[in-house]
């Protein structure tokens, strides 16, 4: 492989940043959630890149587990979004401000 590892790392950081901006900027709960998934994937990329760099499979195993947990998280998160939607009839996170002090 002739691609420097740093390329992957920078790429993943860019993707992570995009994901963060999405979390902070969008108001639709589902889009926010998808941005979170993007962040997770960026991190997975970093893990696999490092695994290649260190010549070990630990990074890949960790990325594997990250995917599993992400899957479980998506399931639960979407269930929560659905039940919140049933309560406030909207997926706009700005509408869920009952904790406003």
């Amino acid at each position, binding site marked *: *492989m*002739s*691609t*420097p*590892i*740093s*390329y992957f*790392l*920078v*790429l993943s*950081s860019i*993707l*992570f*940043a*995009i*994901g*963060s*901006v*999405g979390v*902070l*900027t969008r108001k*639709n709960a*589902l*889009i926010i*959630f*998808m*941005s979170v998934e*993007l962040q997770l*994937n960026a991190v*997975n*990329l970093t893990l*696999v890149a490092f*695994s*290649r*760099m260190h*010549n*070990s*499979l*630990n990074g*890949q*195993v960790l990325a*594997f587990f990250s*995917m*599993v947990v*992400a*899957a*479980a*998280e*998506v*399931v*639960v998160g*979407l*269930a*929560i979004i*659905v*039940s919140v939607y*049933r309560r406030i*009839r909207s*997926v706009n996170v*700005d509408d869920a401000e009952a904790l406003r002090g």
Partner: protein
Amino acid sequence: MQADLILFWVFAPISVASAIAMLVMRNAVHSALFLIVNFFCLALFYLILGATFLFAVQIIVYAGAIMVLFLFVIMLLGVDGREDLRERRLIAQRPVAIALGVAFVLEVTFAIRASIGFSALAPAGFDKVNEGGNAQALAKVLFSKYFFPFEVTSILLIIAAIAAMILAQRKSHAVTQAEMEAHNAAMEPVAPEPVA
């Protein structure tokens, strides 16, 4: 020029562009579709990096299961309408978020520059790690060294499934329009009462 380098330089911009597109789309379904594109690019990167198993898992699980689930919910909740992207309440949010993102990228760049350098190539010898194929090698590590986390995650998945079933249960009676209006009225932001 090696094949992987060409592939990288082709698909890296695609992944970034699709990520940005996911960000700016007004329609949630479009966002999801662009994210799937992004996932496919990432799967390709895994392949370049020698993680063939993860390449497959990424497509099957992420793009194939998770995003489908997302699309189900989007359709269910009917939010495929156009969303208003204007920022009215927290005006400083967008610039600060972008600034933070940029700061993050810069920081990572500096960290890389300080540590391994931009042109460091991956060391040789990864083939020996992937002996017998990536899946087999992964399995060997997974079921010996990482056996306990493996079992725990399986329990986690079961719990997640049960949790989702319970959370998404419908209440016994449907909320009537009148109740909904009363509820909305109650949810209005209340001005804090001046303390006497």
